[in-house]
């Protein structure tokens, strides 16, 4: 260690006592402060997979909304003469030529079926000659709708249940948890199937059937979170000054629970979509002739070996939607709860 630094130019002025800088100024925080949400969104933006998923889902949702009013052709209209036409775009581009391999030979199915020139089906037609592209649009819309309605159901039961159970504690909590325990030990699949056997199959019964079991996870997460929040100082303070439980719930609990709710919502939508697909696949889902991703997959599977395109596109669609939701949910979870995965 050097004892003297001679290199420095020292003047008598150098040794004038000036004291500390303005310490008040130092106490100011130099970086702009971010709220919890701004910070989470900043972290989310760094997650490329989540952002791509977000835009992908936005586009898919937009297409679904469009499909309410417009599809290229009537998704339920049958043209038996045009059954099982392969995909074709314009006069045929690679992959969408309208030709099929029959016994080792490429055959122009459109010519065979005497489809007028200029008429083509982007994703082909099914065994009843229905336009698969239109059906896929409708199917995605219906599946998303089911996913969202079922999740709404989760929210409406699960969130209040979790908050009440966690907040009240004691006997209320014990009883409510016991109920959850019993419901959750019945395989939810069985409940859903029993429900669907009982009610007439359709959008409403599927959503209700899934809702009956789906809220359990949400309720559990919300309860656990509420238990932690309950002991936080600011909540204790609110209770001490006598704020009403309802006001505490809306002012302190809901905002702090929102990240849990958002993340769980993002996980339940794909779960519900999957479940609908599964139910339709085993034949108790959305009734014919309506299309959902599940019914399209189920129809496609029957002829998959010979007409693979009929399953290819719905399979790709459901996979992409599921992957996008899962990636976005993962991204949100990491963004809201940075300690879990950094």
């Amino acid at each position, binding site marked *: 260690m050097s004892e003297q630094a001679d290199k420095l130019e020292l003047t008598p002025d150098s040794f004038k006592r000036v004291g500390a800088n303005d310490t008040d100024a130092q106490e100011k925080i130099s970086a702009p402060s971010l709220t919890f949400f701004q910070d989470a969104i900043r972290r989310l933006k760094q997650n490329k997979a989540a952002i791509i998923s977000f835009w992908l889902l936005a586009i898919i949702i937009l297409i679904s909304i469009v499909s309410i009013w417009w599809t290229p052709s009537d998704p339920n209209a049958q043209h038996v003469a045009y059954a099982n036409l392969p995909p074709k775009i314009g006069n045929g581009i690679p992959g969408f030529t309208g030709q099929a391999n029959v016994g080792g030979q490429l055959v122009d199915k459109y010519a065979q079926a005497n489809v007028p020139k200029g008429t083509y089906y982007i994703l082909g037609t099914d065994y009843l000659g229905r336009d698969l592209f239109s059906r896929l649009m409708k199917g995605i819309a219906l599946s998303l709708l089911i996913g969202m309605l079922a999740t709404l159901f989760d929210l409406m039961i699960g969130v209040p249940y979790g908050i009440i159970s966690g907040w009240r504690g004691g006997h209320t909590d014990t009883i409510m948890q016991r109920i959850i325990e019993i419901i959750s*030990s019945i395989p939810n699949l069985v409940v859903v199937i*029993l429900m669907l056997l009982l009610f007439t199959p359709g959008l409403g019964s599927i959503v209700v059937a899934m809702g009956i079991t789906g809220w359990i996870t949400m309720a559990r997460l919300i309860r656990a979170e509420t238990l932690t929040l309950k002991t936080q100082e600011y909540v204790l303070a609110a209770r001490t000054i006598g704020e009403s439980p309802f006001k505490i719930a809306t002012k302190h609990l809901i905002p702090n629970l929102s990240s849990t709710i958002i993340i769980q919502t993002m996980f339940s939508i794909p779960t519900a979509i999957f479940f609908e697909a599964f139910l339709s696949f085993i034949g108790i889902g959305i009734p014919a002739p309506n299309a959902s991703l599940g019914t399209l997959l189920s129809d496609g599977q029957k002829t998959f070996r010979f007409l693979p395109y009929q399953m290819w596109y719905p399979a790709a669609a459901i996979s992409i939607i599921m992957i996008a939701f899962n990636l976005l949910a993962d991204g949100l979870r990491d963004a809201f709860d940075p300690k879990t995965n950094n």
Partner: protein
Amino acid sequence: MGKYILKRVGYMILTLFIIATATFFLMKLMPGSPYANQAKMTTEQINIMNHQYGLDKPTFQQYLIYLGGLLHGDLGTSFQFNNQPVSYLIASRIGPSMQIGLQAIILGTLLGILLGAIAAIRKNSWVDTVATFFAIIGRSIPNFVFAVLLQFFLAFKLHLFPIALWEGFTSSILPTIALAMAPLATTARFMRTEMVDVLNSDYIELARAKGNTPWQTVAKHALRNSLIPVVTIIGPMAVDLMVGSMVVENIFSIPGIGDQFVKSITTNDYSTIMGLTMLYSTMLVVVILIVDILYGLIDPRIRLSGSEGSQS
């Protein structure tokens, strides 16, 4: 611990009782006739049948008879499948389901643990990316889509495996892989999160400070601590497997209980649906109980204090 297990078994029986009751009355509400060929039967024949199966008795009495039957394993008679007893129907079909289920859960958890552990150790490396990719694919692509793809490419196009039917081990490979995807994804994901947590803990740093090499640290300290919580996800995975088995068995034409369940649903075979519901519920409840007991046995914090959730 003994008292705890006893209490849990008590709850288990209560749960099963509630499920049995609920299923019974739901089935009574079901529309449609229990007989496959009722249209061809005369009223007299129906009355005889009803009498034979006890369906002419008051509902509550039928309920008691049903409960009594359950106690000694009598699940009723299937009216659709050659009037066989449901228990016989299940017994003859449970073998293949169990085989595929066990194979899938073993394959899925082992690979998942491996993948999750490596991903956590090599966090943010390409291994992690690959593992994350598999985990996302595994839980995003529905297993029936996966099953159909496997069937199409590996069996139909490449002829590596039998397309369907149940003819020994080779025909169990594709269904096993299709079923294993979900547990694999779940385990890998869970294992990674747990292991990342454990690797960031003070005792891991202390283990390194003792002179353990990174791999020794993982083998001696990190692995066990992250594996213990993995036991808890066996329950949810069992549910996934049950769901999966229904479609996968159907796609690969495997004579298992999942396939039977789907068939019973499409033919309104209520007594079989009821029997299988009880079977699935019992399996699930028992699995959850075993997992809880197992967890208590392998986690010293629970084992010795005799209560759940002591400090970490």
